[in-house]
């Protein structure tokens, strides 16, 4: 209790500049990040959407459809697509025709298949 009173007394005797620093400091930190938030949430989104719409118009796509396609796209969807493609391309070699072909080689003569060398000449 005594300590609380002492601290309260000390708080009153603090330099007014200290309170100014706190109020201005907290205010500026919030303001700075708020401005960045507003910029990226509204201004940049507006610019990018505008760009997307004009691109869609050029390509003859409905701008509203292009915007919806952009907004529903999430990192998880991308990850799933990427994984599917990865697995598809990695498993390509597993898809075989199932036909085993032995290519016959006909040669006139080869000592490896010579009947003469495979028999005991008694």
């Amino acid at each position: 209790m005594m300590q609380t009173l002492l601290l309260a007394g000390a708080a009153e005797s603090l330099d007014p500049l200290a309170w100014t620093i706190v109020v201005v400091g907290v205010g500026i930190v919030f303001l700075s990040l708020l401005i960045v938030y507003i910029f990226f949430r509204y201004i940049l989104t507006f610019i990018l959407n505008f760009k997307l719409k004009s691109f869609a118009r050029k390509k003859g796509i409905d701008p509203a459809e292009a915007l919806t396609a952009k907004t529903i796209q999430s990192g998880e969807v991308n990850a799933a697509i990427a994984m599917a493609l990865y697995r598809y391309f990695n498993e390509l070699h597993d898809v075989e025709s199932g036909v085993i072909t032995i290519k016959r080689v006909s040669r006139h003569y080869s000592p490896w298949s010579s009947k003469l060398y495979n028999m005991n000449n008694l």
Partner: protein
Amino acid sequence: MLALLVITSLAWLAFVKPEHDRQKAQAESGIEISAALPQYQPDNQPEEGFLEGLKQFWAFTGFRNVTSGHLIMIMVGLIFIFLAIRYEYEPLLLIPIGTGILIGNIPLFTDGGMNLQVGIYQQGSVLNYLYFGVLKGVYPPLIFLGIGAMTDFSSLISNPRLLLLGAAAQMGIFITFIGALLLGFAPPEAGAIGIIGGADGPTAIFISSRLANGMNLLADGTPVKNLIGPIAIAAYSYMALVPVIQPPIMRLLTNKKERLIRMKPPRAVTKTEKILFPIFGLLLTCFISPSALPLLGMLFFGNILKESGVTKRLAETARTSLIDIVTIMIGLTVGASTQADVFLTKESILIFALGATAFAIATSSGVLFAKTMNLFLPEGNKINPLIGNSGVSAVPDSARVSEVEGLKADKTNHLLMHAMGPNVAGVIGSAIAAGILLSYLG
């Protein structure tokens, strides 16, 4: 031959080197220090000369100059190394800092103000040159460059409202600033102590090197205290202890229902957005708080290197070799700056107490602000308050704490990607707060 070499080396160490150092130090400092040392007298008998030489050698050893303060600090250094190896608490920082503490607390012969040019505070020593980077705030911006080249701002760009959590957590800095003033610290010292609440080691070092460096003068003509060592050690220690400090506060301030909130998955971010974020982030934040330029400028520069896609080599260097080199330098020199006579003071204990309070306030502010935001957000778009703690800029430790706590409540609810948003926003926020403190108190 080997024996002769050993004897020659010992003789050089015992007789010639101390005398050479003494004369050099005397010439540099202009202080007569001969009275402090046992002297070699050429007129003495050879045995006496040998004994005098041995005494002189003994006078220079650490065993003769050791104090209880040195031993305590060596124990602290050993504990840091133990924590880093045994529990892997921030080993990349605690190993250099712990070893630095050992190096900085090897007892040196300083009788009569002798300068052996060995210790970190002795002018002309190698460690003193390396310490220049801390003292003049060279290392922290380089660390920020590396952090920028490592950081992916996608989660923040996809959900920019999380920026506000990074701002809320900076309350710890300003409340601790008031606390330090109440405990009798001068305003620049209080500002440097307050920045511990930002949970950002490089920023803490940067600000303390500017505000509490032992060189600046206060209005009444007295110099400010040198608090770089205690502030840096407190900041890094608490950063290492984030997984211990934050979870109880997070659990205390949230209920089961809030911990179960599922957040929307972040949308994919285009390359254009990723490039524009550091450019506009740099311009907007530095126009508002130009004093934060050395930190924010380098942070966003590093990120431009990464996201531009055409400077891969530079980005790779900044996020690997460069940041590793600077981390070694900063860790070692900050550790070595904790010499017992500078570090073991009443102020250090107060700084540690204030640092713990700062961390607790920063964590609470982030969590409570997330809960406040939820009051205004529609159902299905709410924020899990467990990511509020990530507003402190201990990257990525505090985000990892959010993930772990989220999984404890719901094994399928992953919060890591969401928590990275306020986490990197906290880095920006603490740098802005540091800039404001500098502009008022620097």
